[in-house]
């Protein structure tokens, strides 16, 4: 009995020691992973300073990111779990700071490494699936993106720590359903996300409020204009109350409220709301994010006959900034086509309509 107790105690001790060793190793990996990401941030700041950088000209954020990715691949080659974490984090940054296609290689590698290290039914693997789905969706491959997100959702669902990524995956699915014309399904995904977001984030968290904006967009697509109007107003007041009047995400519900006001025949209010949204957008958003707002504003100006103002707004949009966004390009060329039509330049309009159609076909796949 004493022997049993002793071996049992030893077993527990060994088990506890193993847990401690695993935890220490995990902490080491976490530190290593976050170290790589913070190295990237430090490199960014060094490049901004003429006296700190090593080259004559500063490296661009995409170049620094690519260097950090190459460095991680070389130094963490024997530690696939840490490498996967770093590649996924840097890849997510690459989507925003470079382009979705530039990020695809790192994020796909992260997904493969996670599958290999942790298996399919794992939180990290599911998170990498979501990152990869974002890239596929941004590149117009909505089918693959939807498949990935549904797989990730099934993994997140039973995990209590999976609540926030579950909300994100539901929200992304709602967006894919929306852009592929399934507004009813989109609203179901979004309402599921909203219900969990209140506990996962808290009702006043910007991510929870963003879902109200997205809900308004779907209600608008379903022609429920008064409901959409109310949803956008709710999002605007919640952002203003919790984040202040210059909060960047305010631009989305403001612009959409303007669009609903327009459909309701409230043209003066609509243009005023949209102008305020674009003005705020110019202050707080990057050029890429500003594109859709500028296109919408130009369309509204055109529809009330302010053609030269509309042309000015359209001409201010920089195409290189949106070269990998078929959705933005489709709307951009459609706006140009409609403007050319209203200016009685029918041949030009036809060319622009064809471009809009070609890009729209890339979205639908």
């Amino acid at each position, binding site marked *: 009995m004493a022997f049993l107790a002793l071996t049992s105690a030893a077993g527990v001790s060994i088990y506890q020691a193993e847990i401690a060793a695993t935890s220490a190793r995990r902490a080491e990996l976490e530190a290593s992973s976050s170290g790589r990401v913070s190295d990237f941030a430090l490199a960014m700041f060094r490049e901004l300073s003429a006296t700190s950088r090593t080259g004559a000209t500063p490296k661009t954020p995409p170049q620094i990111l690519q260097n950090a990715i190459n460095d991680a691949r070389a130094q963490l080659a024997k530690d696939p779990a840490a490498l996967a974490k770093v590649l996924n984090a840097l890849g997510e940054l690459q989507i925003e700071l470079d382009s979705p296609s530039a990020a695809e290689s790192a994020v796909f590698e992260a997904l493969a490494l996670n599958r290999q290290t942790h298996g399919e039914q794992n939180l990290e693997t599911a998170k990498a699936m979501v990152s990869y789905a974002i890239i596929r969706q941004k590149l117009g491959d909505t089918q693959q993106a939807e498949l990935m997100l549904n797989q990730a959702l099934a993994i997140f669902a039973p995990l209590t720590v999976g609540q926030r990524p579950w909300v994100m995956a539901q929200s992304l699915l709602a967006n894919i359903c929306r852009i592929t014309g399934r507004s009813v399904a989109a609203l179901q995904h979004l309402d599921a996300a909203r219900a969990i977001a209140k506990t996962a984030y808290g009702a006043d968290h910007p991510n929870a409020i963003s879902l109200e904006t997205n809900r308004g967009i779907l209600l608008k697509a379903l022609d429920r204009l008064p409901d959409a109007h109310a949803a956008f107003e709710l999002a605007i007041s919640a952002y203003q109350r919790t984040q202040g009047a210059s909060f960047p995400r305010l631009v989305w519900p403001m612009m959409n409220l303007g669009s609903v006001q327009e*459909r309701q025949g409230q043209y003066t209010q609509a243009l005023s709301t949209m102008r305020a949204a674009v003005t705020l957008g110019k202050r707080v958003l990057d050029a890429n994010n500003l594109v859709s707002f500028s296109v919408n504003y130009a369309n509204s100006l055109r529809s009330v006959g302010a053609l030269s103002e509309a042309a000015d707004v359209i001409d201010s949009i920089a195409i290189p900034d949106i070269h990998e966004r078929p959705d933005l390009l489709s709307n951009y060329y459609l706006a140009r086509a409609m403007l050319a039509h209203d200016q009685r330049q029918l041949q030009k309009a036809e060319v622009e309509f064809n471009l809009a159609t070609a890009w729209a076909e890339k979205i639908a796949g």
Partner: protein
Amino acid sequence: MDLVRWQAAQSSLESATKILATLPESSVYTRTAVKQIRVRWLMHSGQIPAALVLLQNAIDELTAISGDKTLEVLQLQALMVQLLRTSEPANLARAQQLANAIRDTLDALAIHPAWAVYLAVAASP
């Protein structure tokens, strides 16, 4: 528009109709845009009664969503003016009345959309 352009328009219309058939939840605004092209095609090919029915249906559907004082509805009404003028002489007075009503509404809204030019042409003798 010459014959070649009308053929292209018809082809686009058929494509749009096929796509719409796969999108049963599409917004009334999307469906109306396609109906508008079909009305123009029916008008061009002399099928005026069918065009009148389809256009009235589009106007009713959109009005139910947005009210009757919106640019989208007024633009459809302007198309109705053109259609009435090409139908039969008995409809000319109705076309004129409708054109005046649209112009009054646009003036009240202080809005002068590009398509209002066609309204003036349609309303002229």
